């Protein structure tokens, strides 16, 4: 039986309670009659033979690219860059898509006699990956072959010797990227396109760039003009990256792009109920839900977090494209849409969502309050094409504990952002003007980013900018079950229950509002007409 497409349920009296993620736990909420629930499409069937598909893609490139074997010659400098730990979510069960692709690329390189090969994790301003994370992404064979010899690098956006300024775009944007990548005879980029935002020119122009370059598109103005940044053709974020990508190509950097898409098989069997629609839960699903919920209620948050972060997603490859960047990405985007698009008619007054324990920026870490805001207002709000799911002036209700907890190793500047910046203002534009440079150039943050496992000092700003479109669009943001003081610090309203939240929301959207619940994860992209 072929997988079913996404689905919009109209809630009636017989509809069972709806599952909301709530950090490291769940809530079952009974939505008002007449509400809608948007469910993700079921996982597409995976590629039957991923290695063959990869080999086929490498030898049958898209666009004007030559096949990869033709680009590999003895004596060339080959750099293989790859997406970092922020993708996919949750981390996929071994073998990771990057491992599968890179083993094929490296076999071809070896066959062609290429011996100057360097691997680079395309971190941008993200934290460095640990050895365990690198081994997971690349496999032990690749790690052991490259890391001990110093040939497995992590992009350092603060190392002036490892960066090269390629020029400025016709919009005055600096394009500064990793020197090794730029000066290689061939740059192969290995991508995982978890959402429509990923990939394309953004892979190199963002993943291998410096702050000097990134600041041109990671700012409130760009984010507000990206409607949404999941829709490349209406995203200023992408427009800027495309300008940069074309400049990179015009500078002589030869990029061979390899993009992969995954199905939405997100949770292992033990959490099978998370993949299903509630009225279709069988006895095993109900038992699984009750067992998980009860156990999590009794589990300290720290332990619950550890349990969840050990989850490995059974994601499987649904497509592989390789060749010239833009041609590849067009095909990739179509494949993402094939998996994730859900048609939704009309906007809603109130959009509800349950936020899980994980976002791209807290793998093996804490979803701190700023990341909570980013996950809800940045990522989930922007999971649309056409129009936002919620109308302008509407209300977004998110469910998450939103504790004032931070990981001092991964997110040191977030702590100061929370204490120093959000106590002054929550306006993204004012924040950018008053505080960004100070954080971006703070020597301690730079040190921790370069030598530890810290996100760059400016990263919390980017997370807040990610929210800029939603903050401008919405009439109010309510967090159910969050720490009240923390929620208020971010300019949102706390509510203890969904009923309370709806009561509060009525002040903004009036009585009898329409309500839509985005039942994610698994990830979807609402095609709102």
């Amino acid at each position: 039986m072929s997988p079913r497409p996404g689905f919009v349920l109209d809630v009636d009296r017989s509809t069972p309670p709806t599952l909301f993620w709530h950090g490291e736990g769940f809530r079952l909420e009974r939505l008002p009659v007449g509400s809608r629930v948007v469910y993700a499409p079921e996982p597409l069937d995976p590629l039957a033979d991923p290695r063959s598909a990869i080999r086929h893609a490498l030898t049958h490139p898209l666009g004007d690219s030559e096949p990869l074997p033709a680009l590999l010659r003895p004596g060339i400098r080959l750099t293989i860059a790859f997406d970092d730990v922020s993708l996919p979510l949750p981390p996929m069960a071994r073998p990771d898509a990057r491992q599968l692709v890179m083993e094929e690329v490296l076999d071809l390189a070896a066959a062609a006699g290429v011996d100057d090969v360097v691997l680079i994790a395309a971190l941008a301003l993200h934290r460095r990956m640990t050895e365990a994370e690198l081994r997971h992404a690349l496999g032990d064979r690749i790690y052991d072959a490259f890391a001990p010899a110093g040939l497995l690098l992590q992009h350092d956006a603060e190392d002036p010797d490892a960066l090269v300024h390629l020029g400025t775009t016709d919009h005055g944007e600096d394009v500064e990227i990793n020197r090794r990548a730029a000066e290689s005879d061939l740059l192969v980029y290995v991508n995982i396109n978890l959402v429509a935002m990923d990939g394309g020119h953004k892979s190199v122009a963002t993943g291998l760039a410096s702050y000097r370059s990134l600041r041109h598109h990671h700012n409130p103005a760009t984010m507000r003009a990206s409607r949404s940044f999941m829709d490349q053709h209406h995203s200023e974020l992408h427009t800027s990256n495309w300008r940069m990508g074309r400049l990179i190509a015009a500078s002589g950097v030869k990029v061979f792009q390899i993009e992969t898409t995954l199905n939405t098989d997100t949770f292992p069997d033990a959490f099978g109920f998370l993949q299903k629609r509630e009225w279709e839960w069988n006895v095993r699903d109900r038992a699984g839900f009750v067992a998980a919920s009860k156990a999590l209620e009794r589990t300290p948050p720290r332990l619950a977090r550890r349990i969840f972060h050990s989850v490995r997603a059974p994601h499987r490859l649904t497509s592989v494209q390789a060749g010239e960047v833009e041609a590849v990405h067009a095909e990739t985007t179509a494949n993402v849409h094939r998996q994730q698009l859900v048609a939704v008619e009309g906007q809603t007054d109130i959009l509800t969502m349950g936020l899980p324990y994980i976002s791209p920026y807290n793998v093996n870490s804490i979803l701190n309050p700023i990341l909570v805001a980013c996950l809800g207002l940045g990522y989930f709000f922007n999971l649309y094409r056409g129009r936002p799911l919620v109308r302008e002036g509407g209300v977004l209700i998110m469910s998450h504990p939103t504790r004032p907890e931070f990981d001092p190793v991964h997110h040191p500047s977030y702590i100061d952002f929370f204490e120093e910046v959000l106590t002054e203002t929550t306006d993204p534009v004012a924040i950018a003007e008053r505080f960004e440079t100070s954080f971006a150039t703070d020597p301690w943050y730079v040190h921790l980013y370069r030598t530890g496992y810290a996100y760059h000092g400016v990263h919390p700003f980017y997370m807040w900018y990610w929210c800029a479109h939603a903050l401008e669009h919405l009439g109010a943001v309510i967090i159910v079950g969050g720490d009240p003081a923390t929620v208020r610090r971010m300019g949102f309203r706390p509510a203890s229950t969904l009923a309370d939240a709806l009561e509060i929301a009525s002040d903004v959207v009036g009585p009898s509002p329409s309500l839509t619940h985005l039942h994610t994860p698994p990830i979807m992209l609402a095609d709102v007409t």
Partner: protein
Amino acid sequence: MKALVYERNVARFAASRVVSAFGSGRGATVGPLRLVDVDPPDRPAGEGWTRLVPTLSGICGSDLATVDGRSSRYFEDLVSFPFVPGHEVVGVLDADATDRSGAPLAAGTRVVIEPVLGCAPRAIEPPCPACATGHTGACPHLTDGRLAPGLQTGYCTDTGGGWSAAGLWAHASQLHAVPDGLSDEAAVMVEPTACAVHAVRTAGIAPGDVVAVVGAGTIGLTVVAALGRVLAPAGPGAVIVGARYPHQRDLAERLGATAAVEPGQLPRTVRRATRSLAVAGSVTGGADVVIDCAGTSESLAASLALARTGGRVALVGMPGRVQVDLAPLWHRELTLAGAYAYGHEAPLAGDPPDGRRTFDLALDLVASAGLGELVSATYPLERYEEALAHAGAAGRRGAVKIAFEPRYRKGRAR
């Protein structure tokens, strides 16, 4: 008339020390402090003494340490028993007098007293070099002369102290008239404010320096007020305050702090302000000057960790016996300096050529910064246990300064 008298009583002293473990100020319930009926004290020997009746008399951290039996033994020889505590005093003169400059003060004049008992009250001639130049806080003759030992009014058996309805004796050299526009609440803040002014004026703060203030009780808040005003226009570039309670943080920011944060956040905020690194538990660049307004082991350790290499830590809050790792002091060549009381401050731009009396600066500062609002509650002497418990838990209870009103009038207008 009623007065609170502190007597030498070893058993009660020990009891107060034990009971104070249940809360600062609780030592009053079992300790050597007692409410008794007293006659007005005898006039001390020598010239220049005038009796005054206290209107308000504050409860200071050093008073609490005394009441709780936790004061340093260092002070044992610098007091004389029995004594009436209370050195933060605003009161009314019983008779005509003169102030330290010789200007006449009519009976009924409101005054604050500069409580240090230096050479002049003790009739020591010639005065010591410190007193001769106005630095009475540095006087070494605190046990000599015609008075019983006592470093200040409120610790000397001869002068009496502010916690008494029977009044106390003040020497002309101690008197400062209170301007008409200044409330009693504001006036009772002058003495602690003078301590803050002296600390700030002697802390070696250069224009644009980053100054960290550890603690935001009365001393911390008056230090913050002083930092913003008594060094102007050559004041610090940033004043960052570590304050445990929300109302303290609000007040600190209202008084001029650049940032007021929880103590745990203070190192991060100082590090941010100085754009330095954080290594080995210390901020490498750190604050140019750290002012410790708590005087505990924890506050001193925090202060040492916040100062930059070659920086200065000024100890303003009265310390006792503390245990602290001095490795950062040694390694980063920090200067640890005490700041006690007040006297005469060296001139800054706009001052008279020979400088100004600390108390005069404090009188100006109390008025300009509205420090009278720091007085949170006043109590009659009869409710002294309650008052001292309130003072001991001031931060937790949303208060700052607690004072006695020895001749308590219910509903007195403020």
